[in-house]
């Protein structure tokens, strides 16, 4: 079995609120229970992504227990996922169950990664997005409805889902405060949706950092003049903070009062966001295990690098973000995301949420270059 969410929990407002405030130690012990209950290691061993590789490393999945055992397992990375999608056979052997739908990474560089989701996986993803949307729904003096311009990418790219899941979360449990125009940048030259957006004057902008920049270039006048009603931006795919952070630039381009960083990836089946305290992004401890490969270890080809669980990493630790997911169709075990994080704090946040906070600071390769 895998993690399951009942429809009641999925569609009750703030149903998982108590989970957000549990002490960290309790969240960790819940993860241990979850590992046990889901039989994650034995289940994953059935996938060709893991079985053979683990056996070759002398690992017996039936003996693995608890999240500490993760540390003995080999890493997985993007090249493994690309290889998996190469043929009919390799796909069939890797999948644990028939997925319902496929999403891809952005694939801005190189081939796209294809990731499978079952209906249960979609439920998990929706629950995450609902949590994020509830976290960001607190906005004093927001007009009702708040008009949202959401720039997504066409199917099957992962950002396609974001505005639609957000809309459903608002419609079904959020009090119906939002009104959306969803648009893809590829359509802009064809139907000039920017003109409509200027007429309608959105209050929120949801977009990848790249698309937000491109839209600003396409608008006939300066973005902050064309869209003076914009107050809030929700941005993904590139860091808002750190040396290459886009926050100041985007806030000034669009004249935003506030902006939020969002982490969204096809591989992750998760969604992390900056809370209203703006003290980093909360990494949800329920349903995913986070590790970090701290910088400064031996280069590839030597011993596999050592990791820390993010909840045990000292503030300031920087390195590569590694995830273990409980995805039904294909769990990712120790997947090296290629994304850099900096651990900000594992103590409870000013907003009251106890899940650790990090900053995403860019891609690994970019910083190595």
């Amino acid at each position, binding site marked *: 079995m895998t993690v399951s969410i009942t429809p009641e929990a999925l569609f009750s407002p703030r149903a998982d609120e108590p989970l957000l405030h549990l002490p960290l130690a309790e969240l960790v012990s819940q993860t241990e229970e979850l590992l046990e209950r889901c039989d994650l290691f034995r289940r994953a061993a059935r996938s060709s992504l893991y079985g053979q590789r683990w056996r070759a490393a002398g690992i017996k999945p039936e003996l693995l227990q608890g999240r500490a055992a993760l540390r003995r397992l080999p890493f997985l990375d993007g090249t493994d996922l690309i290889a998996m999608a190469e043929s009919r056979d390799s796909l069939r052997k890797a999948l644990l169950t028939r997925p319902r739908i496929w999403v891809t990474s952005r694939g801005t560089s190189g081939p796209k990664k294809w990731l499978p989701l079952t209906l249960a996986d*979609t439920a998990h993803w929706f629950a995450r997005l609902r949590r994020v949307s509830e976290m960001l729904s607190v906005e004093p003096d927001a007009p009702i409805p708040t008009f949202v311009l959401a720039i997504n990418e066409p199917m099957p790219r992962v950002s396609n889902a974001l505005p639609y899941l957000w809309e459903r979360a608002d419609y079904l449990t959020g009090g119906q405060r939002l009104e959306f125009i969803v648009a893809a940048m590829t359509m802009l030259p064809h139907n000039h949706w920017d003109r409509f957006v200027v007429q309608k004057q959105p209050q929120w902008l949801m977009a990848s950092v790249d698309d937000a920049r491109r839209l600003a270039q396409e608008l006939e006048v300066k973005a902050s003049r064309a869209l003076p009603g914009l107050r809030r931006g929700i941005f993904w795919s590139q860091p808002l903070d750190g040396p290459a952070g886009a926050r100041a630039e985007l806030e000034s381009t669009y004249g935003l009062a506030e902006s939020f960083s969002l982490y969204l990836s096809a591989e992750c089946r998760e969604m992390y966001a900056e809370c209203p305290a703006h003290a980093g992004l909360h990494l949800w401890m329920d349903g995913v295990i986070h590790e970090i490969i701290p910088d400064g270890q031996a280069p590839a080809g030597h011993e596999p690098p050592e990791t820390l669980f993010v909840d045990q990493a000292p503030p300031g630790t920087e390195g590569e973000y590694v995830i273990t997911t409980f995805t039904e169709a294909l769990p990712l075990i120790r997947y090296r995301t290629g994304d850099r994080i900096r651990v900000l704090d594992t103590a409870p946040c000013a907003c009251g949420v106890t899940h650790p906070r990090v900053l995403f600071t860019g891609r690994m390769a970019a910083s190595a270059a």
Partner: protein
Amino acid sequence: MNFSEAETKPQVAASFVNHYWEPDWECAPLPELVARLEARLAETDIFVRAARSPLYRQRWQEAGIDPAAIRSYRDLQRVPYTDAADLRLAQERHHPDEFVCSDQSPRFWVSTSGSTGVPKWVPIGGADLELARRIGHRLAYFGEKPARPDDMALAIAAPAPFISDTSTWPGLVNELRGDGPQDIRQGEAVICSFEDVAEGALMAFKRQVTVLIAFPSLIMRLAEGLTENAPLLAAQQLKQKFTLANLLAYLVTRLRQIRPRDVVKVHTGIFAGEPLDPYRRALYDAWGLKLSYNFYTFSEYQIGFCECRAQDGLHVWMDVSLPEIILQADLEREREEEGYVPPARPLWEASAGDEGELVLTHFGDTFPLVRWRTSDLIRVISTERCLCGRTHPRVNFLQRSDDLVNLGVIRFSTFTLQGKLEAITQPAKVARWQLRVSRRGYKPLLTVLVRPASGVDEAEMVAAVKTALAQVEVLRGGWESGLVCVPEVRIVPDLGDRLPTSGKFRPLVYETEGEEARP
């Protein structure tokens, strides 16, 4: 129940004969449906709300319509028609919010294709989404075969802000709500936009696609592309698993062309966006399709009509809309006679074989259509009860009746082309022109007939017109991507319209589709 269990619950097997989502509505006798429609008209506030919209307000006032007094079909017949041009004009002058006729704010704004360069914007509310969803569930029982968990669908959708982008994720969330047919379990899907169609199709092939949901022309283009790349595909299979059989297959494909049907087993196709008939035979040949269904909807309406397993026309829902038809002869007269307003007849009283333009009134909450001229020409198939048991009238969609040059996926306005043709000065001006749309095999072919203003070198004139055609970006994209044939240009000294009664010039003519549509 949790979702993991839902994924593994056993499929309800056995026969699939005469299952309906809402039998009381889908199979009620036609007179009963008409009576219910009248009852609804008597009590609805839709016309009062619609009259707030700048789309209707002024023209209704000018026609002396009191929206509160529309209480029957007879009353409705006095209401003027509205069409896409009215909407465009109104949207140029009014703020989008004025078009919202509901007390609830919209959930989404979607755009129509903007074939004439100016897109229309349509608000969709929560109640509209729920209605489209409920009617959509009916379609789950339409086919010969219900969806099965081992189906693998490849669906091609348009990017946002087109409406088709809204279907995937809200659909999955609705399913999570426990909504929809519980005895049917959907299979797997790769859904992609035009942009990712090559990669998406490749993935779908690897997952052994069995169902196609797309424009028929795109799917045929895909088959052609596959044919071009066939040796490559076989080589990949060989690489994947080197066996004698695969080696033979590889060698064979180097000699003969591969068809999709030799690689995957697609049993069902659901096709939208253009008439299916010209493509049907080619689709069956190339893909080995067993079943194909035509599907129809548009952004302003959102509700889907589909062919049922009887494959004898698309059922037009009488319970969520009031369909009328303007007969072909009246459309002709409208073209010829300035100021003539053609009458519309109720579709439920039409005769089999009647052809004309579909006019729809529906009870949309946010953006109600009232006597909306769809510009789609239909042929009435029957108003009798269908073999499938449903009673809603059946029609086939033929072509467009407006200035839109419809080459399937590729559409543009005659006015766009007119501008380009009128700009030609060398070697001579264009005195007269006409567009004729036909097909070569299944593929749309545009022929431009031109009469130059003075005697010129024909080859030079043809070249000038071809250059003008290439300036219509969407058209050029169409032939460059192989979706339509490269247009032909013919110089004709005497360009009559071939319409016997008409003294008026017709810029666009669709040539009959029949035998020539066969591949």
